[in-house]
């Protein structure tokens, strides 16, 4: 991975359960990103299928190694690195909420969502199996999916394993209160900023927009630099391509002064 990356966040809507329509949309945004010189393009959680699938989950599942849709995305991506979300089916017929990193004509990395929210309006545990493996991609890009970020040891684990950019893809529904921003956004920014602060890494948060069954997704995607400052933020509710320049060496320069990740100890007894 080069140390200077032009990042693109495709903050898009999805058609629920319609792979073909969503593929066409992805191809369009990939083209737009290419025109903007994007090196790494990030789509939201379950970007190819929509989020609230319930009993449609199995009907839109793909086996990525043998998927016409993935092949077309690989061809369209070319030299660009692209993160997409989809329903993955393994050989045993287990379904996963998965992110794929597509690069240079190959699936460079697969992340299966580790924490499946099954409370409130979320029902993922009924339809998906949980992933059980976490590692950064070969070039040090870490990927988490939505709820994964609420379990901070995962981001720390990625940082310890060499990740300097943590990409979080999300389909986070919004809710409002009296404040200037959706209340859900306040929680997310607290989380992404603290992740970038304590792990001294870049955090890229890509959330979708649009409506599914009466619930809206907030958007508000953003990029946080190592140390916790938000450098770019997409609008709420609207589809957009957010562009940000990422200097990966900023992570190293901060870590020279603030060796939090390297100071992590695993030899402390007592609570696990």
């Amino acid at each position, binding site marked *: 991975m080069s140390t200077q990356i032009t990042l693109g966040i495709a903050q898009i809507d999805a*058609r*629920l*359960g*319609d792979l073909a329509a969503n593929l066409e949309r992805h191809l369009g945004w990939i083209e737009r990103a290419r025109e903007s010189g994007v090196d790494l393009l990030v789509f939201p959680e379950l970007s190819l299928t*929509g989020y*609230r*699938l*319930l*009993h*449609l989950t199995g009907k839109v599942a793909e086996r990525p190694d043998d998927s016409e849709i993935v092949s077309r995305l690989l061809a369209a991506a070319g030299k660009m690195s692209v993160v997409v979300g989809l329903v993955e089916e393994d050989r045993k017929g287990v379904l996963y909420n998965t992110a794929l990193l597509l690069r240079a004509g190959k699936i460079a990395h697969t992340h299966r969502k580790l924490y499946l929210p099954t409370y409130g309006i979320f029902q993922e545990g009924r339809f998906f199996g949980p992933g059980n493996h976490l590692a950064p991609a070969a070039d040090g890009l870490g990927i988490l999916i939505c709820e994964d970020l609420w379990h901070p040891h995962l981001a720390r684990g990625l940082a310890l394993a060499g990740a300097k950019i943590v990409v979080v893809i999300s389909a986070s529904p*919004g809710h*409002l*209160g*009296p*404040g*200037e*921003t*959706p209340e859900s956004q306040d929680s997310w920014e607290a989380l992404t900023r603290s992740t970038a602060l304590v792990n001294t890494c870049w955090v890229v948060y890509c959330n979708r927009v*649009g*409506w*599914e*069954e*009466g619930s*809206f997704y907030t958007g508000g995607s953003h990029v946080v630099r190592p140390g916790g400052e938000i450098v770019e933020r997409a609008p*709420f*509710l609207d589809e957009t391509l957010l562009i940000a320049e990422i200097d990966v060496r900023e992570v190293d320069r901060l870590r020279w002064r603030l060796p939090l990740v390297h100071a992590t100890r695993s030899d402390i007894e007592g609570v696990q």
Partner: protein
Amino acid sequence: MIRKEDVRDRLRLNAELAERVLSSFIKDAVQTTGTEGVVVGLSGGVDSALATALAARALGPDRVLALLLPYRTSAAESTEDGREVAAQLAVETRTIDISPMIDAYFDENETDAEQLRRGNKMARERMGILFDQAKKRRALVLGTSNKTEILLGYSTIFGDNASSINPLGDLYKQQVWQLAEHLSLPKQVVEKKPSADLWPGQTDEGELGFAYRTADEVLYLMFDRGLSAGEVVERGYDTDVVTRIEQLERNNRFKRRLMLIARLSGSAINLDREIPRD
């Protein structure tokens, strides 16, 4: 701990953001379904005025049809206020008098029906007309029930609670008032005493026996925040009112879960096969 004096503040909304979100809801629903717009029954009250205003903002006024559907005993000011709202929003109106349909049924078949049954029939007649007009125009029926009346069951099942999409169903009554003010709807519409206008002199609060603002607060504490009735009373609300609200909420749950299907197959609609709509 949430105190009584904090509750009203918690119910305040960022009106600008709420307007944006709810407009986008209507726009998305019309786009996703491939329909031409919405039809809405404009009663002269604040709920339907707000729903109409949101639709006009979302779609442009020319894709909204407001239907005024008075019965012969409906207050004249209801129709006048409805017209004023539509004029302010530049929305087309059409008036259809439902008296002949209602009277034909009761005069010929059910002469001793009480007011409540007549009121329910009127609500369902209006619903029937709205869905017919929607079919004619390839439009959606815009619902106008708010969260307070849905939770209290203060509605006619398959009548005013029926719609294709409802932008107001997660707004308590005082949030409806707040947004209506924010959108500069006519003062007399925002400030008038809420009424189903099913018979002369009827008011919601008179019939329910408590004020909407109180109902909003009690429902917020119980439904949104999960407090027990006892914990609500501890915060200074009247015991009888809290008990009554709790009973109404419990007894009217059936109105919020439509299509109760007897499961036989193990692949029953909605229970075993939850197929979402976009």
